[in-house]
């Protein structure tokens, strides 16, 4: 039984800045403990709360296993990393920043492919011409599979891509991609277009609670204090 609440916040970038801003606007000042490059922090005036600075994707995992009680991270990462998200976490609030869409993008020169149905339609001729299923590069393996399955698309292969995904069709390592985009500019610059019905998820930063963490009465009380300040 723990008496302390662990709050996981992103450890770098815009997402961290905006998360800290959100808390300070609510009168909750998060500051780092010890070394300024360290990864531990606290909220001034709330001595039962530990703040952990971790990477956004690590936050999803910590919420899943219950190492963190509360966390701020993108919905895309939660949905990707927790197959049964509704059983493991609760989404407490959409935070209005960190907007990004998970989309399916194909080469612009594929004039015959504008929708997911067109893509499915193309799969047989693609296989006949190239002796393999078309390849989808993505770091969102689970989201992609679930989306394609829901649209009845089965004839494809996923290749995991951990960076520069939008360059894979031009490089020839994949034929199309499932990736995150905010303005679509990077996709365009790489000769790609988003399918008309190819938005898999409109994601943004969320305030999320773990269902598997140890929620003692003291921890609940700390949560209530934070939620009240944030107006959730």
């Amino acid at each position, binding site marked *: 039984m723990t008496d302390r609440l662990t709050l996981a916040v992103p450890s770098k970038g815009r997402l961290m800045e905006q998360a800290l801003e959100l808390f300070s606007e609510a009168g909750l000042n998060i500051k780092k403990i010890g070394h300024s490059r360290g990864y531990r922090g606290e909220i001034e005036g709330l001595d039962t709360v530990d703040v952990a600075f971790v990477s956004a994707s690590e936050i999803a995992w910590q919420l899943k296993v219950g190492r963190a009680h509360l966390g701020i991270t993108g919905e895309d990462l939660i949905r990707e990393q927790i197959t049964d998200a509704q059983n493991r976490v609760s989404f407490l609030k959409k935070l209005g920043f960190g907007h990004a869409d998970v989309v399916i993008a194909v080469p612009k*020169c594929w*004039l015959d492919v504008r929708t997911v149905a067109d893509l499915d339609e193309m799969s047989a*001729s693609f296989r006949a011409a190239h002796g393999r299923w078309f390849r989808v590069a993505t770091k969102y393996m689970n989201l992609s599979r679930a989306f394609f399955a829901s649209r009845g698309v089965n004839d494809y292969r996923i290749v995991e891509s951990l960076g520069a995904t939008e360059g894979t069709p031009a490089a020839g390592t994949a034929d199309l991609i499932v990736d995150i985009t905010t303005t679509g500019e990077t996709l365009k610059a790489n000769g790609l277009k988003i399918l008309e019905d190819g938005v898999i998820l409109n994601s943004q930063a969320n305030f999320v609670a773990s269902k598997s963490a140890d929620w003692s009465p003291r921890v609940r009380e700390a949560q209530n204090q934070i939620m009240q300040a944030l107006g959730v």
Partner: protein
Amino acid sequence: MVAETAKKFQALESQAQTLMSVFTDAGYEAVAPAVIQPADVFLDVIGETLRARTYVFTDPDGDELCLRPDLTVPTCRLHLARDTMPEQRARYCYNGAAFRFQPILDSPSHPSEFRQAGIETFGGTSKEKDEVETVSTVLTSLKAAGLQDIKLRIGDLGLFAALLEAADMPERWRQRLQRHFWRPEAFRNELKRLSADQPVALKNLPDDLMRALKDANPMEAEQSVSDYLAESGIDFIGVRTPMEIAECLLTMIEDQNADPLPTDTAALIESYVGVSAPARAAGARLRDLTRSHDIDLSAALDVYHQRLDLLQEAGIDVVHTDFAAEFGRSLEYYTGFVFEAYAPSLAEDIPIAGGGRYDNLLQAAGAENAIPAVGAAIHTERLLAAVANEAGPHGAEGEGQ
């Protein structure tokens, strides 16, 4: 499953021995295919949906491997690896672990690690006889393991293929409906689309390109596509050629200009999919249905009835066997006859054994030509639970569901 008791382990082992001895007595050769399989071959055959439930990993050399999600594909690979004449008839049996990720939590009826016992017949020349032998061997083994009350459900994907063949429509529509058969919703939508008076317009394609493609032959269309891309400043990336894209566009235009599928034919296909009845009655119903739509399905229906006769001769209770046209939709690699055995003592929607014909699988696994294949597998943990349930609460080990 965290662990199993020694008692249950022993019960499974001795049950497996019973099953295997029925198989080997019937002439099936016992084999033990590898647990770890190359992911590539497997995933190509089973598709991404089952991949989501397959344990895939990378070994220290960077090769992508998987824990086998069933034993059928590994047995196909084993057959091809050792047999220089793979089209000659060969019969195998096996018992071993298979692994499937269960999205929520594993449960006694859906464990993520389970043992499959099964048989496969490759390369036979008399298909119906091999199918009946498969059903009969599996049912015999279930009885030998102590299961008394067994119900049988059958389907026939060959009938559906024959129905599409007999109905008048462009070949690519047949292929499309065949491909969508596995996905009920997509199938219904496709049928609706093909029979709609007003086909979906090719929106968003620029008018000048559309004009250029009208009545174009493939070479001209390829040129138009290349010109259009150059004029619009669109880079050509990826492996698809302008010719492939042009051909797909021409097909779309052709579809748009084609007469819609007669609503009568669409209705027949819908009614076919909905047929579900005792096996003999279903056959009669299909005959009436096709006759009233003036479509000749008699060759395929004769095969269907001939198979039922063979099943009956083998001592199988055909009267209480149900047929469903839709059955077989869940596993894409089946191509013809399919069946499932279940025990009322367990649950109707949890089959204890299942199998069927999959004539494309060996080729997908690397054979030069298509080789006929039929097989079946028993979910042995479920069989053990069903036998225990039949024995009642005071039975050997009251394994619940």
